């Protein structure tokens, strides 16, 4: 950090570059070259080409039969194909359930792990983080078993604790009931909250203790301290997790694909946007249309990010700004 600030003060704009500076810039660019070549080859050109493909009817098996159809793909995606809108709404619907629950759970665990009074914190941290290391496919398959309506332990536990009939075909069919399936998928996600938990924990440890001491003198209760100090002080961390979570949700693919092969079971509920994109592009090989869907996804992601950043100034607190 200090290095860059020193450089900034030393740097004098509008001065012609000396030979030494030129040489330095050349060396710097040489070191950046892997990224610059990669950026060009794997990001910039493909992105532009992707837009070009979106104007074609294109099947990679018969590239010679490609035809230019102008904005027909775009028109189809936006106006005609209901599945585009539906899969986007499903994706957002799922995100609206899974993100608050996932981030809330991670924050809750971080608060517990940060509490002065808990015994055996390192052990809990390890054990709550551990499932995040299990390959996601394995996580999905394990949860698929434990949520089975007949033989799964979750339903048995619910039934024995509450007495509600949960086991069996009349019970809670987590993965087959359109009302429940997003909650089931959210549960898989809880096994991956390790990173968010650790990041929240680091955020909590960065909250200045003077604030708590002052609050305690004023007689603030535990809850007041939580909502008036702790959470406001880590909104920047929450915001960062939220942005990553929203972008990640938009690309949610693995769990529905492993469990249903993209069939959308039950009742199309799990045909999320990325699944639909995959189907069009790699099952039907409608790659022109696929490129359109990809570009639409990029636009969604951009809009969502801009909206989120727009809301940031109302609720996100950056400690660094105050110091300026």
């Amino acid at each position, binding site marked *: *950090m*200090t*290095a860059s600030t020193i450089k900034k003060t030393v740097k004098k704009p509008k001065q012609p570059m000396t030979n030494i500076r030129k040489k*330095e*810039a050349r*060396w*710097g*660019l040489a*070191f*950046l070259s*892997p*990224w610059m*070549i990669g*950026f060009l080859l794997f990001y910039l050109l*493909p992105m532009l080409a*992707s837009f070009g493909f979106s104007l074609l009817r294109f099947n*990679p098996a018969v590239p010679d039969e490609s035809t230019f159809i102008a904005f027909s793909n775009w028109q189809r995606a936006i106006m005609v194909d209901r599945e585009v809108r539906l899969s986007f709404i499903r994706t957002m619907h799922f995100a609206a359930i899974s993100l608050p629950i996932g981030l809330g759970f991670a924050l809750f*665990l971080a608060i*517990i792990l940060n509490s002065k*009074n*808990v015994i055996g914190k390192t052990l809990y*941290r*390890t*054990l709550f*983080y551990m*499932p995040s*290391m*299990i*390959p996601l*496919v*394995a996580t999905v*398959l*394990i949860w698929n*078993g*434990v949520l089975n309506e007949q033989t*799964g*332990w*979750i339903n048995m536990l619910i039934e024995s604790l509450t007495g509600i009939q949960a086991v069996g075909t009349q019970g809670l069919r987590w993965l087959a009931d359109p009302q429940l399936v997003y909650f089931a998928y959210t549960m898989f996600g*809880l*096994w991956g909250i390790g990173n968010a938990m*650790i*990041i929240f924990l*680091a*955020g909590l440890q960065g909250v200045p203790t003077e604030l708590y001491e002052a609050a305690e003198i004023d007689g603030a209760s535990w809850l007041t301290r939580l909502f008036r100090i702790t959470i406001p002080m880590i909104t920047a*961390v929450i915001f960062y997790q939220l942005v*990553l979570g929203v972008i990640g949700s*938009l*690309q949610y*693919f*693995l769990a529905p*694909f*492993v469990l249903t092969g993209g069939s959308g079971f039950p009742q199309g509920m799990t045909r999320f946007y990325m699944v639909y*994109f995959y189907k069009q*592009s790699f099952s039907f090989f409608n*790659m022109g249309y696929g*490129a359109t869907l*990809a*570009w639409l996804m*990029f636009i969604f*992601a951009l809009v969502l990010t801009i909206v989120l950043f727009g809301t940031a100034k109302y609720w996100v607190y950056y400690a660094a700004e105050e110091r300026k």
Partner: protein
Amino acid sequence: MSDNILKRRKPMSRKARNRITAVLVTSLTLAILFVFLIPLMYGIVTALKTDAQFSQIGAPLWPATEAQFEYEGETYPVYRVPLEDRIRDMALVVKGRQESQFVDINNPQAGLITWEGSWRALDRDWQLDPQWQNFRVAWNTINFPRLLWNTVKYAAITTFGAVFSSALVAYGFARFRIPKKNVLFMLMLSTVILPGAVTLIPTYFVYLQIGWVGTWLPLMVPAFFSWGTNVFLIRQFIMSIPLDLDEAAMMDGASPLRIFFSIILPQSVPALTAVSLFHFFWAWNDYFNPLIYLVGHPEKFPITIGLTAFNNLYSGRTNLIQAASLISAVIPLIIFFFAQRIFMQGVVITGVEK
């Protein structure tokens, strides 16, 4: 609220109050942890069951088989028979509609005992019988050594490529005055959140044209052109290395390349380790890219795709699926338990300083 009441009554010592909170919060955490890890216990227990146990009514939760008893050279099923004094485990020797003849498995010398009632209404006796060979069957059926080798190869090569190239780029961003460096840096960070789909179709088409689809190349080559998050993390770390070291070396006439190899790389080992671990597990978990580029080439599948294929082929054999899932988790978990500290510090650096 409760605080106020306590204060009014008797000044309870702060220590005692803390101890009560500690007990409450700790037990709450334990309860949550228990529920959180239920699926893992389920997975382990299920992996050890026989195929038959899933369809049998009255089967216990733990891996068990129905007890058998050998009596005078024949094998008979064991039931739990309620006699006057208590329930006894007895082998059913002669089946009858109204009454059946049993032999007490703990006292076979007593000979046949007649019990009145329908034997069909009795519960079977189950005994613990974990099927450890399920793991071996899963290991062989899924051809785990091959999947493992593919995955390790993929993870190791891409990790090396991505970390080394990212270190070069990070050094460039951290130490050199380059015109428009901030713009370039922001551009690089923006690639981190760019949805991969938007570049996918043209790259796929190009790979198809040059014959790379069906090989590992599309998965490995891009890694050698640096990786946004890695660059960011390593750059943060390099900027914390004192400049004096570079300058001293420069005075001695060392070239930037030399400085990179003999000062920057050795000094950045903690960051490089963390980044390598992250990248390794990212590759270990990668699903979408192998799915697209390796379709139809099962001999090249990594674990993730192999496990999915296995699940589709053996969907009725829950025990084998659980066993295979657990096998695939063993190596990441072992590495995690050994490298835990590095790992969590790395998470913090990438997550908080952004």
